[in-house]
């Protein structure tokens, strides 16, 4: 069973990003949106946890990245950018959506 995990709070504000990363099983996906897009910043203290996360596909919402000035070159490699339509597609493609609020 595949799960789409969604996280919306900054890893520097709440522990939900870390909790989600610790619980996501292989074959699941994680979407960072709202302030959680700060988790994809290269050079941030959380980078070692996020970068090279095997078996779990990582996504970030494009509009929220743009609103925070996080351009492609500032992002950890391998994270796919989606728009709201892509968010809907991910929700449909996975069996469940688990919000880490």
């Amino acid at each position, binding site marked *: 069973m595949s799960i789409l995990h969604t996280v919306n709070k900054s890893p520097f504000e709440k522990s939900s990003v870390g909790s989600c990363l610790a619980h996501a099983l292989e074959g699941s996906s994680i979407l960072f949106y709202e302030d959680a897009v700060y988790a994809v910043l290269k050079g941030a203290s959380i980078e070692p946890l996020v970068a090279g996360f095997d078996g779990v596909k990582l996504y970030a919402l494009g509009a929220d990245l743009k609103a925070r000035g996080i351009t492609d070159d500032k992002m950890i490699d391998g994270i796919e950018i989606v728009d709201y339509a892509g*968010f809907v*597609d991910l929700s449909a493609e996975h069996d469940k959506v688990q919000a880490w*609020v």
Partner: protein
Amino acid sequence: MKFSIQVNEGPYQHQATDSAYQFTKAALEKGHEIFRVFFYHDGVNNGTKLTTPPQDDRNIVNRWSELAEKHDLDMVVCVAAAQRRGIVDEGEMQRNGKDAENIAPGFRISGLGQLIEAAVQADRLVVFGD
């Protein structure tokens, strides 16, 4: 596919109701069905018609009402959360002896059973909020 949406955060608080709105809109544009939008906790504040944001700002409440009218959405406000926060419809006004109601068009007040039903009936429940 059938989606249900849960909104736990008030308007203009952080970003959750904006995200929920954009997700709902995108899902409808893709031809998906929205079984219900359920407003819980501070999310019930999305359902007051008394908000007057500045003209150059998005009107979150009206935006929901317009989306509901266009797509015949079922937007439910949790009654217990609404009573605590002063979200009142005609029935609640009479039942609780209030002198006004403030429920925005397209919203209705009902119980938590509606959230359970929304989760059971829809293929996916997507939760937004704090």
